[in-house]
């Protein structure tokens, strides 16, 4: 291989047919004179534009289809000519510089074109240089050459991550891998399970209980997961009334007044609230507005007046504090119920985190646009991170995630995308340049993902997500197979 061109952080390398290099691979350009190396990622493999190629191919085409003949090439010179025909041009991006086996972000120097040695760097060696997967490793899969890629659970800590890809590309699978990896390292997590695919993580592929049996707790909204109004608290219920049930501002003020009055008198419940509402001296329209919302809440069966039915998040969160996950099953409830349950859960989490009843928690949010209200997006990337809520968004619709989330994401896992619309949405990702993202994600095979950010020390890596040894339910159901 030879350096052909270097412009800004773009490098073009001529590669001969006997040298196997694919998109996503890393090259090490070793400059013998300065004892430094450049780490370059191949983002595209093209044919080199050799003079005379067009004439040559056109003549070949004549020889292949219209005219038949033989070559008497005693010196077998065609072998050399065929090498030239297959010479490739590797389009690469400089990722970092390496000196004395450690990373140096100074890439302002230029290696020698003539005396530099260029070779493909083995993934194991690359991971070693980058120093990834050393502390609390989570094996997320392997590279094309079979090297296991371990990321550090610590790299997800305190950050915001995005997993996105087309339907069936393997994003939920990776999300489960990360979840189980975090559990293995003792981290508590909460999953907003919109498709009901996390509930069986505590079962092996054969359907038998596995080591996660005690660590995964399924919360069924309206089933084993009910709360009282009092436990939810005024702030959360008020948010539900306002954001999910669209209670007007005037009515909300009356709602607050009645709530506080009930609090002073003893107990806030659906029943006592309705009675208080009937006896209060308020506008009929306001009374009707609040009552209809209370009836809606009551009909969802998520709020209860029976404290024996109630589940306290503090209690279950204690059970996962040494590693475990609360799976909030949102698949069997209506969209409004879903939003109410999430509103409650996030409100309660903030409360627990603020009071240090919970140190920190990882939140896995699948298709968050289906249940997360707009104002929460900003909260998640700013306020909630500081409180210890670290979110991993999982979606197949990248345009549903706010631009600010992309810009502030610390780690990103991209699966295959073809649509220009989706790629445009992803172009907001700050951790990776647009050219690399577009070139690599468009050619990713199913279950392969491009990973970049804190988890890979900012160096984009392509990995085949490893199979899970648990009963997964995320696969698309099929009729013919």
């Amino acid at each position: 291989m030879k350096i052909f061109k270097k412009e800004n952080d773009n490098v073009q390398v001529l590669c001969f047919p006997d040298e196997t290099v694919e998109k996503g691979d890393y090259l090490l350009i070793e400059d013998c004179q300065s004892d430094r190396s450049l780490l370059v990622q191949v983002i595209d493999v093209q044919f080199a534009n050799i003079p005379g190629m067009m004439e040559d191919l056109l003549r070949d085409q004549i020889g292949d289809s219209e005219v038949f003949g033989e070559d008497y090439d005693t010196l077998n010179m065609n072998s050399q000519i065929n090498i030239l025909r297959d010479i490739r041009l590797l389009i690469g991006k400089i990722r970092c510089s390496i000196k004395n086996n450690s990373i140096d972000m100074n890439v302002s120097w230029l290696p020698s074109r003539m005396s530099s040695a260029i070779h493909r760097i083995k993934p194991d060696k690359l991971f070693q240089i980058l120093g990834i997967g050393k502390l609390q490793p989570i094996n997320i899969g392997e590279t094309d050459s079979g090297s296991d890629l371990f990321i550090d659970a610590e790299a997800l800590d305190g950050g915001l991550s995005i997993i996105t890809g087309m339907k069936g590309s393997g994003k939920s699978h990776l999300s489960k891998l990360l979840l189980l990896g975090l559990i293995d390292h003792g981290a508590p997590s909460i999953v907003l399970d919109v498709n009901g695919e996390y509930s069986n993580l505590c079962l092996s592929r054969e359907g038998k209980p596995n080591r996660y049996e005690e660590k995964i707790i399924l919360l069924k909204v309206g089933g084993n997961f009910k709360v009282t109004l009092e436990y939810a608290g005024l702030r959360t219920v008020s948010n539900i009334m306002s954001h999910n049930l669209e209670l007007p501002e005037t009515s909300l003020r009356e709602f607050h007044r009645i709530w506080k009055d009930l609090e002073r008198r003893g107990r806030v419940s659906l029943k006592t609230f309705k009675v208080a509402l009937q006896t209060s001296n308020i506008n009929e329209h306001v009374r009707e507005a609040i009552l209809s919302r209370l009836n809606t809440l009551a009909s969802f069966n998520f709020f209860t007046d029976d404290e024996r039915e109630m589940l306290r998040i503090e209690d279950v969160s204690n059970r996962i504090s040494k590693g475990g996950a609360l799976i909030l099953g949102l698949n069997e409830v209506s969209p409004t119920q879903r939003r109410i349950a999430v509103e409650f859960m996030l409100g309660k989490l903030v409360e627990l985190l603020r009071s240090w009843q919970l140190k920190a928690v990882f939140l896995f949010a699948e298709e968050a646009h289906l249940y997360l209200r707009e104002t929460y997006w900003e909260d998640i990337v700013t306020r909630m991170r500081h409180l210890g809520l670290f979110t991993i968004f999982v979606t197949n619709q990248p345009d549903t995630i706010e631009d600010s989330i992309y810009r502030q994401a610390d780690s990103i896992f991209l699966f295959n995308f073809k649509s220009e619309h989706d790629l445009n949405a992803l172009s907001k990702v700050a951790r990776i340049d647009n050219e690399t993202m577009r070139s690599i994600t468009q050619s990713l095979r199913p279950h392969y993902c491009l990973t970049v950010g804190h988890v890979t020390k900012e160096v984009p890596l392509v990995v085949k997500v490893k199979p899970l040894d648990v009963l997964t339910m995320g696969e698309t159901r099929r009729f013919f197979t």
Partner: protein
Amino acid sequence: MAVLNNPSEAVAVETGPEVVSFPTHFADLSHKSLQDIAGKGFEPLELTVPDVDEFEQPTPQMGDVDLRLEGVPRDWEGRLFKLEPSSNRVKVVGIDTTCRRIGRTRSGFLCALRGTVAWRDDYAYRYQRYGPLLFHMNGRNSGLLGNRQTDSALLMGVEALFEREIQSQVCHHFKDSIILLDGCLATHGSDPAEKAGRLEAALSAARSNGNSVLAFSKHTRICVGERDASTLLDNWPHHCILYVGDLASEQFKTLKLLGHTFIAKLSPTGYSFRMDIDKELGLLTAVATVQKLMGSEVIVQGYPEVLRLAHIFSIFTAMEVLGIQRFLAAHYGLRIERPRHTRRLLFGPFGKWDGA
């Protein structure tokens, strides 16, 4: 070594036995000439920035000089033969060779040769291609080619030797066919390629096999004074040939002419070319041969398709030249040296060759 280009078609479209026995003495000479410079340096011909010194023009054929007529023929009608394609179909064979300079050494230059024989049978066009053969031409080995002063003359000489070899073998191999050569049927007496009367011998062998030999020249400019005479037939709406051999200038007459010379317009809208036909065939037979050619072969823009194919398969593309340069480095240990461009050294960015 025969390399079938299209193995999947090997059974259905066999090209048949080797038309030309590969000229092994050429291969030996090639190897010997290259061994003399093994491990030494050479300046490859630069392909992307043509330099005025290196700019490659096609090497003209021996005797392929401009055809200057002594005036517009007066007996026009008597010299012009209107042609009708003959239904008597025959096999048409075309031969072309290419010689291209590959690079310079301290003592000479390197060149590559390749030749193609193309023909058409009942089913398809076929070809057999010989080469590339590489030669290092220098003061010592160029003696074989007579007293030639310039690189171009040496290139012309080595190509003529190779071409005559292939032409001769084709004339011996094919029977009852029309054989088309690139160039003309005229020789310089001093030409080493012709000293042994190789073209005459080839024509004779062709005749004894029932073949007719025609030569088409792409390079000859036919003119009357300074005027392009090929335009004489422009307004003539038919296929035709104009006999002009006896009208050639004194300069033309210094050559040994082995053919009748015509201006040929073989398609009504195509170009006109100089065409020579074996003199021994007689004028009327020659005209009949052209009609047979028109009935048996596709004529595109006034030029026979087999000859076009022979040219296409012979010519070296820029990529092949690069491949040959790599071959020389890999197999003969030739070190590639940076070419010295005097113009660029002297004039910097103003030393480019832009046709100035």
